[in-house]
């Protein structure tokens, strides 16, 4: 194995090992540390997954909007790489938020979905993410693609404060901040921190992939010229 290939090999495996460690820590805390809730039983543990991915879904949208704004200001595609990476991770997290939330709702409210303000605003956020993905996939020119993605990100940003404040500003059935005993709070914190680190690593990896792909395209064009 050459020295470069060896370095790549260990870099890749280090990424995977750290990522797997983060998720394993979170899952272990959820299974082993978290006490059983009396009313909902084991289904209550969905909250630890749900809150972690929901937080990342919101944070990724904020990052996408900021980096999109920077792209529009500087016209530098390096900012768009951040925006695109945040879009992919954010869409994944937002989809998982809706899926885990729906499963929790079925256990808690006996319905898969209701048009509660928090659920509705979260659904709008998911629709914004999806719109950005679909719009980007249909455009070839990288600058035009970045502009369209940036417009959706900045317009969609208006929905983020609504998602956060929906339980306070409007009347609904979604819990404001669930009452938890100290051990549950610790498990929630571990889960949020581990998933945040895990998704941050995925985000950095994806951004570097997009950056390298662009560099390779430029070099390919130079080689063919």
């Amino acid at each position: 194995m050459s020295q470069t290939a060896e370095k790549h090999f260990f870099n890749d495996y280090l990424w995977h090992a750290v990522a797997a460690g983060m998720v394993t820590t979170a899952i272990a805390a959820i299974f082993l540390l978290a006490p059983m809730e009396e009313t909902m039983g084991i289904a209550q543990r969905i909250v630890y997954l749900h809150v972690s991915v929901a937080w990342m879904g919101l944070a990724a949208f904020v990052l996408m909007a900021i980096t999109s704004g920077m792209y529009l200001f500087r016209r530098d595609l390096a900012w768009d790489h951040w925006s695109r990476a945040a879009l992919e991770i954010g869409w994944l997290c937002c989809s998982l938020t809706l899926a885990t939330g729906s499963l929790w709702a079925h256990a808690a409210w006996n319905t898969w979905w209701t048009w509660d303000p928090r659920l509705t605003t979260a659904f709008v956020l998911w629709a914004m993410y999806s719109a950005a993905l679909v719009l980007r996939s249909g455009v070839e020119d990288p600058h035009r693609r970045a502009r369209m993605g940036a417009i959706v990100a900045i317009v969609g940003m208006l929905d983020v404060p609504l998602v956060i404040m929906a339980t306070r500003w409007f009347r609904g059935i979604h819990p404001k901040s669930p009452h938890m005993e100290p051990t549950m709070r610790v498990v929630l914190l571990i889960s949020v921190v581990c998933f945040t680190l895990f998704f941050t690593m995925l985000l950095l990896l994806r951004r570097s992939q997009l950056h390298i792909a662009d560099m390779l395209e430029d070099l390919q064009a130079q080689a063919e010229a």
Partner: protein
Amino acid sequence: MLTFMTAYLVVWFALFAYMLRLGGEQRRLRRAAEALQAQFEKQRSSRQRAT
């Protein structure tokens, strides 16, 4: 139990699928970089032969 396991598996499979996608992209980029390097080396050696 079934509800919690479903939620857990949904999250697990989604993350696994996305990581597989990133792994595939990583391999594609490495192959493209190696092909480009080979192309540049070929061009350089042909230029050296011409001079």
